[in-house]
């Protein structure tokens, strides 16, 4: 009796140990997977922080001669990435303007008609869209906008390409969010004689707003760093460009240009740091909104 109790006690201890070991292994592995992010951040900060000052945000990218002189004299390369920041804001902003209403309407349709045949087709197309390589979307922007409409490279074309790219995440997050909203909420409004469209816009949509907004922000953060589609559409520009029918720079395009110019290569770090920071902020905001604005039924 006694011995068997001791035995099982020992067994229990062994199990607890295994349990602990397992937990610690998990923590370690989880930590391991976040190591690359910290290494990247560390590297970018180390190499890029010197470059980031006020003029970094309001001056356009330097040309190669200016940079060469500065490097020779062991000075910080003058100029900034203002043309890229403005370009990214305009291109991403316009892409959002196109994709957000379209995506939300589409997501609402899918949530409301989840079993319909047409809904099935739409859902399939959206899923396929998610898998389309971004360079192909660049080609689409080129064929649809650059050639027939703006007659040359333009930020509008870039926006169209990126809007297609962010559409799936908005559609799916809207659909998933709205599907979680209890049917009884809709019934409550309809039973008060509220017309269907008002019920959707003023009751159902606001109840899912946190999920939808965080989906939108994740969509934005996904396209903010895209380069390939912009190469075929917005092309790039040395000056700040606010005309949407003209070529425009963008932060990722600048990074690519810096990479191709031996004199400017040091600018890569600061520009990358800024872009990464921007995207991290967007992601954190999305998380915070999903949590804070969550509507409790």
């Amino acid at each position, binding site marked *: 009796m006694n011995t068997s109790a001791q035995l099982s006690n020992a067994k229990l201890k062994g199990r607890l140990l295994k349990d602990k070991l397992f937990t610690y292994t998990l923590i370690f592995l989880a930590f391991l997977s976040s190591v690359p992010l910290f290494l990247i951040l560390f590297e970018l900060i180390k190499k890029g922080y010197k470059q980031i000052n006020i003029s970094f945000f309001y001056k356009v990218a330097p040309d190669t001669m200016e940079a060469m002189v500065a490097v020779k004299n062991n000075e910080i390369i003058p100029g900034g990435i203002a043309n890229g920041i403005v370009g990214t804001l305009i291109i991403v902003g316009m892409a959002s303007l196109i994709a957000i209403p379209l995506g939300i309407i589409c997501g609402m349709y899918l949530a409301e008609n989840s079993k319909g045949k047409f809904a099935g087709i739409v859902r399939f197309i959206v899923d396929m869209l998610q898998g389309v390589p971004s360079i192909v979307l660049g080609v689409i922007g080129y064929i649809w906008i650059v050639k027939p409409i703006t007659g040359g490279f333009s930020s509008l074309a870039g926006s169209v390409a990126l809007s297609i790219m962010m559409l799936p995440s908005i559609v799916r997050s809207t659909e998933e969010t709205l599907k979680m909203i209890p049917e009884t909420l809709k019934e409550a409004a309809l039973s008060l004689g*509220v017309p269907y469209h008002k019920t959707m816009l003023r009751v159902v949509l606001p109840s899912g707003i946190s999920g939808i907004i965080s989906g939108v922000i994740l969509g934005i953060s996904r396209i903010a760093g895209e380069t390939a589609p912009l190469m075929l559409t917005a092309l790039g520009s040395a000056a700040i460009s606010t005309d949407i029918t003209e070529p425009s720079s963008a932060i990722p395009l600048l990074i690519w240009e810096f990479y191709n110019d031996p004199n400017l290569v040091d600018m890569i770090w600061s520009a990358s740091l800024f872009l990464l920071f921007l995207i991290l902020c967007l992601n954190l905001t999305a998380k915070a909104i999903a949590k804070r604005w969550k509507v409790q039924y």
Partner: protein
Amino acid sequence: MESTVLEKKEVEVKIKAQPNKINNMMQNPIENIESPIINIDQLSVSYGGDKYSINDVSAGIAKNKITAIMGPSGCGKSTLLRAINRMHELNPDTHNKGTVYLGEEDIYKMNPILLRRKIGMVFQRPNPFPTMSIYDNVIAGYLLNGIKLKRREKDEIVEKSLREVGLWSEVKDSLHNKGTFLSGGQQQRLCIARALAYTPEIILLDEPTSALDPIATAKIEDLLVKLKKDFTIVLVTHNMSQAARISDYSMFMYLGELVEYGKTKQMFTMPKDKRTEEYLTGKFG
């Protein structure tokens, strides 16, 4: 599903075995009710196809009384209730035979939006609007329909409605908190207040207390009895003692048919139909 189909066949066989006995006893129940506010006229409702979830139901609903609808699960209680304010039409494939009159008007020829303004509804689970405060929830009917009210009118409606459901003293200091922070029973009373505030003539309630504890249930029962002074109440309930306690008239439904309809006292003491008796004595359901 399959089992109900089977049961139905059995019952049909039974009915055929004793022809028309039941039907004779049921003869035109509308005449039993003096001055009905609603007349359900040979109503059958299908959710699609030729299977009818309720079959040839005729009944008058008495004004300023509580009418209870009872019956085993799946017998069509909710379907009948929802057919009265056309909420069943949310399912796109529904179709009806027969109709329902509100006073002299055929509700299936009315604008459903106007109809629902006259016939309010309260659901099984409390469903206050989660994005709205208690205050806004009460006047949601006006807010969502874009009916402009003066500040004073709003305050009046909110206070009056919340007093009517006995919630005023409990929430008067937190009117601008979200309605979803209330307890289940309070939420349900808020939902009743929301229906009342929009000044309907009739209130339909589908098992309004089945998600609540006994104390909250008792409060709502008292409330309904008080409200029948001003409103006509139709109540679906699984709870027989609830029907016995508060209703004036009772319907017993079985497999989509209105089996028996009459004064509640009479039905509970001397049911006319064997199936009603079996249900009331707990033999099935």
